[in-house]
Every structure is written in C-alpha cells, then in structure tokens.
C-alpha cells in the first residue's frame, strides 16, 4: 500500500495530466461539429484498419468451430438449393400442363401418378383420380408432350392406365409429314414401333408420328413420337422404330382427356366385322 502511495506520489504530475487530458478529450468528443465528425471518421477508419490487420491472423481455436458452422450451413444451403430447383422444375412442368389444359377444348382432368411400371411387357401407371373425378375407361391420357396411354381401370379415387409401353395398346397413327398410316404399338422388348407401313411408304428418321383421326379412342393429332430409324421388316412392310414424345422415366403429372369413343361408329364397325 505504501509502495503504491509512493508510486502515485512519484507520478502524480502524469496522473494529473492524464486526468486533464481525458476531461478535455471527453469535452472535445462531446462536440458535434465538422472537425469532430471528421476525427470520429478517422478514428473509426484507423480502428477498422487495425482490426482488419488483426483479423488476418488466423485464430486456430476458432477455426474448428467456424469450419463446423460453415459445414452445417453448407449442408443447409445445399438442401435449400435442391428444394428450390425441385420447385422450379415443378413450376415449369405445371405451367406447361396448364397451357395444355387451357388449349384442350374437350376438357381435361389433372392427376398425379402414384405408381408406375416400365420394365414389363404390359406397363401401366396408377393415377390419383377416379370415378369421383368423372374418369371413365378408355379415356386418353396425355401430357403437354404427347400421348401417354388410355384408362383401363377405374375405382372411386384411382385409375389405371395402359401406357405406350404396353403390348396390349395398339393405336391408329400416321406420319404427320407424309400422312402415311400405320399401327403404333410396343414390341415388348423395349421398342415402340410403327407397323403395317408399306415398304414403299415415304417415312424418314425425324418424322413426327401422331394419332390418326381414324382412331375411335384418341383424338387425332396427338404426338406419339418421332421416327428413330427405318428399315425393312420383310418384302412387304417397313420396320420403323419410334422415340416416344413423352419421357416416361420422369413423368409425374398427367391429364385425362374427357373424350369417349363414338358408340354409333364403333357399333357399326363391330356389326360390319361380324358379318
């Protein structure tokens, strides 16, 4: 205590100076004039420069926790980006479907696919709309890209549709450019084909295949796919492989077109065939 007292006595001049200087500085910095604003700005800049210099030195104790935080943040942001991408794609799909819905004069029922098989010879999809949504057997199923198939089974809230990759589905089709008719079907081993096309018919790779107006089930003009390659099946007919217009692997939402076969026409045709 005595030592402290002696020390204070020894430096009392400096203590008094410090007190007066501090009081003066407090008074100065309580002013609000241009000079003080400038000095404050200078002081802030000076301290900022010092802090940036100090912050350049890595703090090894904080790096670990900072890394952990950044990793967590990274995962969080990656999830968010993925979900935003998903939402964007969904938005694009739904926008296109909405366009189709508005363009379709027959009227459509929208539905989502809840089950799908693509690896069998008789592939189908199950959709979450049924009798309660006015869906009936034989109604065509489409997307904005083209024909998907037709309804073959209906319950109250669900329906099953044959898709193009089903051996039992045969569609009356034509080449859009040359108007050549044929039967569009699935060969059961992975290829969609246009059959019954004469060997001399004008069909080239890239030609668009659409549903024919002759079909009693499907409205005419719905895209089925494009010609992938052509060859000779035998002496009479061509072998035409078709790439589907619809990508069944990523198919999620569809529309069921409210169209029914013309009963009078089909009855007449049946009667004639039975004769």
């Amino acid at each position, binding site marked *: 205590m005595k030592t402290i007292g002696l020390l204070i006595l020894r430096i009392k001049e400096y203590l008094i100076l410090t007190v007066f200087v501090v009081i003066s500085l407090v008074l100065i910095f309580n002013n609000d004039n241009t000079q003080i604003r400038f000095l404050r700005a*200078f002081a802030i800049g000076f301290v900022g420069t010092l802090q940036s210099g100090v912050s350049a030195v890595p703090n090894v104790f904080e790096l670990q926790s900072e890394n952990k935080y950044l990793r967590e943040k990274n995962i969080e942001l990656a999830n968010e980006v993925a979900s935003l991408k998903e939402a964007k794609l969904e938005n694009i799909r739904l926008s296109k479907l909405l366009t189709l819905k508005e363009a379709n004069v027959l009227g459509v029922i929208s539905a989502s696919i809840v089950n799908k098989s693509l690896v069998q010879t008789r592939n189908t999809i199950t959709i979450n709309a049924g009798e309660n949504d006015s869906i009936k057997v034989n109604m065509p199923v489409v997307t904005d890209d083209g024909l998907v198939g037709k309804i073959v089974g209906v319950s109250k809230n669900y329906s099953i549709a044959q898709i193009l990759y089903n051996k039992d589905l045969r569609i009356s089709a034509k080449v859009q450019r040359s108007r050549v008719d044929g039967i569009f079907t699935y060969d059961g081993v992975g290829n969609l084909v246009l059959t019954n096309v004469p060997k001399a018919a004008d069909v080239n790779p890239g030609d668009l295949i659409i549903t024919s107006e002759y079909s009693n089930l499907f409205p005419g003009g719905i895209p089925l796919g494009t010609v992938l390659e052509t060859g000779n099946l035998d002496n009479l007919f061509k072998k035409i492989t078709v790439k589907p217009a619809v990508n069944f692997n990523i198919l999620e939402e569809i529309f069921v077109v409210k169209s029914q076969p013309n009963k009078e026409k089909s009855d007449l045709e049946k009667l004639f065939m039975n004769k």
Partner: protein
Amino acid sequence: MIVSYLKYIAVIILLVAVQKTLIWLIALSNYNIAPDLVILMVIYVGIARGHIEGSIIGFLSGLMIDMLSGSFLGLSALSYTLAGFIAGYFCIREREEFLKKYFLIGIVFLCALIGNSIYFLIFYQGSPISVFNIFLIYVLSTTTYTTIVGSLFILFIKDSKKTAYS
C-alpha cells in the same frame, strides 16, 4: 499556495478578457494572426511552478477560453494543459542555470508551438486546407508572434529581477 493559485487565476481572467476584447489592437488582421497572451501566462506558470501547476492553470484557462468562444469546448483546455505541462520540464526551481534569456525564449516557442499545433491541427480537421498549410499559416505564424510578444515579457521580467536583486 492557494493565494498564489488565486493570483494566477486572477491574472488569467484578466488576460482572457484582454485576449477576447483588445487583442485586435495588436493582431495582424490581414493575415489573421494574433498573439496568444493566455498561453504565455500558462507557460510562465509551468516554468515558475512545475508540471502540476502548469497543467492545472493550463486546463482552467483553456476551459475559460473555450466557454467564452463557445465553438469547440475542450480544445483549448487540451492544448493549454499540454503546453503548461511541457513548460514544467523547464521549471526554474530546478534548472535555473539553464534559463538564460534566449533559452527561455526557446522554451516559450517550443511550448507555444506544441499548444498551437494541437489546437490548430484539430481545429482545421475536415477543412480543405492541407496539414502543411495549417502548420505554416496558423501554427508557425501564431507561435512566432506569440513568442515575440513573450520575449518582451521575458526581457521585462529579467530586467525587473535584476533591478530587484541589485
């Protein structure tokens, strides 16, 4: 001691009054330069009594000037405190043999230079005048004029002491 403090304060009040009212009589108004009589008194107290008295009188007189000017409270207090404190390093009680006439003038110049530097360099912050020009136009000229006026006082004090001793 209190009496001597009161004397100093009385003289300071008088000098502050003169500084604020009559200094224009000897100011070089064309160049905006005026001697600082108050800082001369502060330096005198520092030299005559030491650091503590120099600081105290410097702070009080500076505060008085600031309050009367009303523009920048604390700035004169700071510059006068430091001038008075530095003058204390040349306290006449301890180093009388060094305090020759011209050396004393040098001390006045040094202390006034420090005080004026602090004052003007802070006062003109944020203005378009460069630091060099502030130093040349305001600090150096005011300090020189103050030292010239202070030299007259020094000569007067020396002569009066000589008269007293004889």
